[in-house]
């Protein structure tokens, strides 16, 4: 098969053995009638074997598209992946391998769980048939063995009476049970990486607790790595070690969960955490991030958060900030505050944040 040859830069060096997933300068564009949407715009991060990583952001931040690009589940076109982008998985670059090869990686080595378990399951087959199909495709075993494997994996995810449940159709199950089926299916081939895209968003809080505990237990027992995509900072705090915060297609902050959630350094993360209602803020006004997420067709010229940022100054409208290391920690933030140019303003911004966490106050006037 010959593809149209685009001048592709030569591949970089593979990451070391301990790195399971290494995403480098990932760019995903959508060509639509109105122009080009840069859904993911230069995202880089890596994930070690058996480690957990959270990707957080609001709707439209590009977190789901990042996962779909890694899985190569996007249709090209309308999607387009940057020529310089690389995704290394288990020592291999997977954006450039033939799609047939990629199918073997999906399911076998990388599995994905989606937000809405009802639409991800086929309504006309029993859950057992669906799990067994996946097992037979990837593990080259007979029908009988695949069926047994389906029962086993349902048992593994704590499904009561798995021998009966395996013969049921998706509509006969509750939302929590369906999500268990999705997890069973994802785990049936013992993947090295599990990508969970908002796995509990559609579930009630007590069922969410069940599924999170299940994911945690299984992740620890099987030693697979977990990439958890969510908008819920609470879920992130409980589930992962490291976290990537995304805004308008870019990474704005990356560090350990304790660093990022307790002492956020990117103004967007600071505002996000300030706006969560908590006991301490009772009686006071909640902090708000003024305005709305910018339209992907009219992104601000320099810093994408600048129009909503309470700390912005003239530099922020002329020069796009890069991800810079934050002093004294294993982390990066995308903000001029952490460059020498912002040094004089850093302390005031920190103080403002600490203040907002306790009293709850308006960061800037709300939109008129």
């Amino acid at each position: 098969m010959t593809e149209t040859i685009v001048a592709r830069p030569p591949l970089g060096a593979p990451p070391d053995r301990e790195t399971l997933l290494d995403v480098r300068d990932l760019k995903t564009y959508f060509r639509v009638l109105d122009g080009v949407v840069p859904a993911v715009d230069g995202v880089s991060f890596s994930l070690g074997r058996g480690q957990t990583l959270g990707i957080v952001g609001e709707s439209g931040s590009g977190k789901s598209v990042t996962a779909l690009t890694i899985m190569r589940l996007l249709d090209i076109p309308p999607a387009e992946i940057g020529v310089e982008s690389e995704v290394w998985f288990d020592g291999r670059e997977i954006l450039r391998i033939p799609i047939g090869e990629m199918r073997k990686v999906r399911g076998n080595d990388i599995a994905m769980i989606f937000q809405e378990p009802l639409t991800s399951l086929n309504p006309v087959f029993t859950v057992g048939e669906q799990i067994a199909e996946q097992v037979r495709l990837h593990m080259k075993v007979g029908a009988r063995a695949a069926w047994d494997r389906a029962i086993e994996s349902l048992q593994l995810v704590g499904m009561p009476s798995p021998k009966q449940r395996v013969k049921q159709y998706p509509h006969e199950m509750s939302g929590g049970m369906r999500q268990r089926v999705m997890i069973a299916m994802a785990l049936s081939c013992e993947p090295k990486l599990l990508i969970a895209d908002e796995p509990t968003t559609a579930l009630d809080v007590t069922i969410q607790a069940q599924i999170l505990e299940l994911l945690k237990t299984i992740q620890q027992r099987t030693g697979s790595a977990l990439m958890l995509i969510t908008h819920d900072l609470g879920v992130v705090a409980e589930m992962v070690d490291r976290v990537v915060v995304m805004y308008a297609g870019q990474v704005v902050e990356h560090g350990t969960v304790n660093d990022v959630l307790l002492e956020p350094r990117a103004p967007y993360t600071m505002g996000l955490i300030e706006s969560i209602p908590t006991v301490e803020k009772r009686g006071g006004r909640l902090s708000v991030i003024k305005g709305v997420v910018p339209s992907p067709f009219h992104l601000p010229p320099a810093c994408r958060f600048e129009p909503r940022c309470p700390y912005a100054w003239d530099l922020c409208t002329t020069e796009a900030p890069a991800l810079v290391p934050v002093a004294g920690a294993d982390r990066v933030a995308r903000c001029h505050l952490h460059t020498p140019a912002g040094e004089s303003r850093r302390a005031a911004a920190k103080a403002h944040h600490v203040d907002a966490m306790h009293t709850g106050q308006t960061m800037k006037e709300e939109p008129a």
Partner: protein
Amino acid sequence: MTVASSNGSTAAAGGPLLEVSGLKKHFPIHGGLLRRQIATVYAVDGVDFEVQPGEIFSLVGESGCGKTTLGRSLLRLIEPTAGSVKFHGQEVTGLSADALRGMRRKLQIIFQDPFGSLNPRMPISDIIGEGLLAQGLTDRKTRDTKVEDALETVGLRREYTRRYPHEFSGGQRQRIGIARALALEPEFVVCDEPVSALDVSIQSQVLNLLLDLRRDFNLTYLFISHNLSVVQYFSDRVGVMYLGRIVELGTVEELYRNARHPYTIALLSAIPDPDPRRRKKRLVLKGDVPSPVAPPPGCHFSTRCWLREQLGNPERCVSEAPKLRTLQSGHRVACHFAEDVAPDVVDATIAQQKADVPELSDIA
């Protein structure tokens, strides 16, 4: 029967603004060849509470617990099956259509879905102005000024009256929904999950707006939500619902610090906390909420109750429905064994609970 005059009845001053007692809403399920009633959904199954003037009373619970049905039955958007709802001491449930219309001006609702609740074919001026005209609060000439005033109150531009719902973002649509309710100058507003469809940063804008409006217009809210963190921040008193009944009711301080119903305790323990220092062991409930078509006999929570299990499955839980009774601490709880709940019992349960996942070695 007469309607409370439009300036609000002062006869009931000092009493609760809204009194609900024994409220039930049962939906029949028809089936079979003759479309006979074959079953009943016990959506709201005997609920009592009252809301004081000026307070924010919240109802929390998971999907299917009946909180939305309850909110709508209060306004008779859904006709209750039994029970009474009194507003300013006056019965709402028996009112004639005409009298109800007068009452509706004082009782408004903000809906959950900012996309589904605004008619896509109507400009904003019609969406907000329709109620004003129906209530005779304005005529065609002055309508648009009133609509513009309402838009301004919720932080939207006056020029937006000619626009259609699709031109607005989720947060803005929710503001329009709020403007629609507030244009009628109500006293009591049911807020049915007003922020659950919104992103966190937009959610805080809308919550702030609701708090400002309450202060400026002396509003009383019934706030319906499944988000326990929002409820804790936002409300004065909380009622926790499970399968059509209120299982616990008290002030936010009392309920979040000193919950007594086993369901409330599990619900609170399930909230994911954004502070990683407070990573905790959870009390995870087993199984799913039973169907409201066939709620368990006795206590509706008995099938999932960890306390009942700790106490050796007493018979009373399945033979007798617990009443909502007042405890010494002042809050109300519907559990026969609320006095047996202590921190060490909760800890013991958490320690005992194995993740309902078998060991890998058990399977192979």
